[in-house]
């Protein structure tokens, strides 16, 4: 880390969707904040100057869903290892869902995580509080206290609340506290311990299937309550085209809901399970090519606003079993930005759309004052080399989990520098 108080970024292509900027500009940072964004800044007081010509300068990436495995699963990863990996991958803020061990249902756990973040001094972490105690779906958690401790929203993570009365009360209580509810839609009965998309591939491989309806029935149910209660809601990690249709209809009817997709869902499909590749064991599962394309279109059209890594680092042993016995999830921090920008190369997204999906949109969803390069903003900035030509390799990964199906993939875009609160981290 290089401690300097005055930093000047020269002649980068600054893409800042929040301020509608896409132009070659200089950025001056003083005491952790952006103090000027101009066509040309000559500031002799700058202690350090970064020549960003030929590079892309964007707000620091905000990852809506990343598990740092701490507390509880430190053998998989730690706050220190994952925030370091995140900062190297251009991610300056992570949102941690409450499914830690112990669950984030008490302020002490939030304090514990915040303490780890301060010590590690890399990317920042914001937490979602548990909506119910121990995520059991039985008692409401102390949402007001969790909010005071710093939680930016509440969620029951992947443990869907099946009792609709408790769900309704949880939504009402969250609404009273002006907290956004973050929903990972999944009906545990319909999922029925499945590990693959219910379809031709799962049938051929003999893998227990998870139908589309496991996701869409919960969305349909929750949308009714959201409409009635008026709680702010966000649907995360969508995987199927049926879900998109429901979300789109609700948005058209004026419901204030947002959605995200895990970036791997925009590249892989059920076909990638064909060789029992346990690195493709994710929940929700990879679905059909049609679903992948609908998800891509939904991101382009704005039905889905954000992408996230759904980062789940594992130790090697977790994936060394027959497919159904492996633990689901991808170590995704280090592929989030390069995969998202692949969508620009493939003409699915424009540059500002891709940057918004990584920065402005997640900041807005989390309700945090980040994800933009306005004057006065905290200087979280990511600088990208758009012509890097690199290959993802396990030995280069900084995350403690090397579990990713993207090993061996080639990428054009690589993070050159990451600046967090004005400090040049990478």
């Amino acid at each position, binding site marked *: 880390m290089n401690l300097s108080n005055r930093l000047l970024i020269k002649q980068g292509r600054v893409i800042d969707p929040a301020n509608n900027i896409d132009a070659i500009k200089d950025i001056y940072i003083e005491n952790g904040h952006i103090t000027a964004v101009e066509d040309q800044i000559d500031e002799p007081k700058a202690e350090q100057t970064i020549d960003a010509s030929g590079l892309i300068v964007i707000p620091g990436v905000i990852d809506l869903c990343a598990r740092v495995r701490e507390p509880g699963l430190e053998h998989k990863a730690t706050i220190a290892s994952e925030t370091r990996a995140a900062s190297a991958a251009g991610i300056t803020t992570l949102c941690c869902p409450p499914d830690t061990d112990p669950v984030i249902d008490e302020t002490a756990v939030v304090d514990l995580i915040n303490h780890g973040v301060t010590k590690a001094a890399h990317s920042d972490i914001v937490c979602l509080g548990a909506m119910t105690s121990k995520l059991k779906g039985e008692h409401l958690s102390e949402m007001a206290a969790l909010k005071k401790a710093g939680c930016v929203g509440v969620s029951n993570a992947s443990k869907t609340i099946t009792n609709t009365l408790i769900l309704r009360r949880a939504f009402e209580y969250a609404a009273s506290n002006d907290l956004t509810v973050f929903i990972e839609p999944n009906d545990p009965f319909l999922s029925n311990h499945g590990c693959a998309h*219910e*379809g*031709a591939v*799962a*049938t*051929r*491989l*003999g*893998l*227990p*299937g998870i*139908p589309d309806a496991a996701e869409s029935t919960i969305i349909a149910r929750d949308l009714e309550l959201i409409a009635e209660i008026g709680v702010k809601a966000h649907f995360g990690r969508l995987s199927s085209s049926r879900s998109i249709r429901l979300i789109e209809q609700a948005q058209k009817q004026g419901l204030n809901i947002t959605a995200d997709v895990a970036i791997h869902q925009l590249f892989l499909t059920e076909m990638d399970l064909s*060789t*029992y*590749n346990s*690195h493709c064991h994710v929940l929700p599962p990879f679905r059909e090519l049609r679903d992948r394309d609908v998800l891509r279109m939904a991101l382009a059209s704005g039905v889905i606003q954000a992408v996230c890594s759904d980062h789940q680092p594992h130790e090697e*042993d977790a994936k*060394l*079993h*027959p*497919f*159904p*016995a492996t633990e689901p999830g991808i170590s995704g921090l280090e592929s989030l930005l390069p995969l998202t920008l*692949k969508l620009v*190369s*493939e003409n699915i997204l424009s540059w500002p759309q891709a940057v918004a999906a990584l920065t402005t949109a997640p900041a807005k969803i989390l309700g945090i004052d980040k994800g933009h390069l306005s004057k006065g903003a905290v200087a979280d900035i990511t600088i990208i080399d758009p012509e890097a*030509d690199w*290959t993802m390799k*396990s030995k280069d990964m900084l995350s403690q989990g090397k579990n990713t*199906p993207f*090993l*061996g*993939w*080639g*990428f*054009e875009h690589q993070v050159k520098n990451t600046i967090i609160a004005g400090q040049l981290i990478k």
Partner: protein
Amino acid sequence: MVNKNARATNPLLGQDHWNIQLDENGRLKHFLTIEGLGSEILTEILDTAENFTSVNNRVVKKVPLLRGKTITNLFFEASTRTRTTFELAAKRLSADVLNINISTSATSKGESLLDTLYNLQAMQSDMFVIRHQDSGAAHFAARHVAPHISVLNAGDGRHSHPTQAMLDMLTIRQNKGHDFSGLRVAIVGDILHSRVARSQIHALNTLNTGEIRVVAPRTLLPAEIEKLGVKVHYDLEQGIKDADVVIMLRLQKERMQGAMLPSELEYYQQYGLTTDTIKFAKPDAIVMHPGPINRGVEIESCIADGPQSVILDQVSNGIAVRMAVMSMTLGTTAQQTGEDK
């Protein structure tokens, strides 16, 4: 510029994991699934098995093909027929056999499949015969064992049970001749949970069977099963109409608990093969069942024991087919030594 669509193979999986079953000369190395094997190999298995049936009918039922080889039967699920016929097959080929039932062994103490495999490998085993509750377990084993070891799949989850399918093909061939193109085969029962059905479907399609049907209520059919190349029937009479071969699958009692079926009685009335319903099949149709049979649940006793039943032939053929696959994967077949002639 980088190739945007570049899809590198995963280095963890090694090269070309599709053909993991075949060695560099295109010969059978592991036997994990029927899928991906051509009709030549399936026919070779059947021909080799046919040769071994003569061994099985001799007074001294033993050939020295695999003398000095060690075969480990690694069963993570209970089995009687499959395990004993694998054991007999190995013994008739003069191999040493080690039987390990894991349900009472190390994994119940927390050992992973991989550790179990590595430990047995250290005991100089030449072949693993594996049955496991998880789909893909045999592929997983084949990918991780030392290069000289062959893996035979004795059933993995809902995925595959290739020796069962091959003994069924042998039984059909013995009764209906070598040309399957004119045959109509109906598979009746719990297709959803059946690795036997999936392997049979692949084998029947590879051997160019005229028509393959699956017959079951929707609760017992996997999604998009028709994409495996079968016709779907919910009605037994329609499903077995004019069939040459009727294969009944075992109905496990626990299917009643998961609300997949209302009762055994209703299942028997809807899908049981009885003296009344068998009339819809061809008069010379053969009746098969991979066992163990639930009499009065999927099949009436007098049909299971009747003239059209070839259920016990299937069991005998199981030994010959397993001898064939063992000798082929370990590189010595009966034809090469002329042992059976």
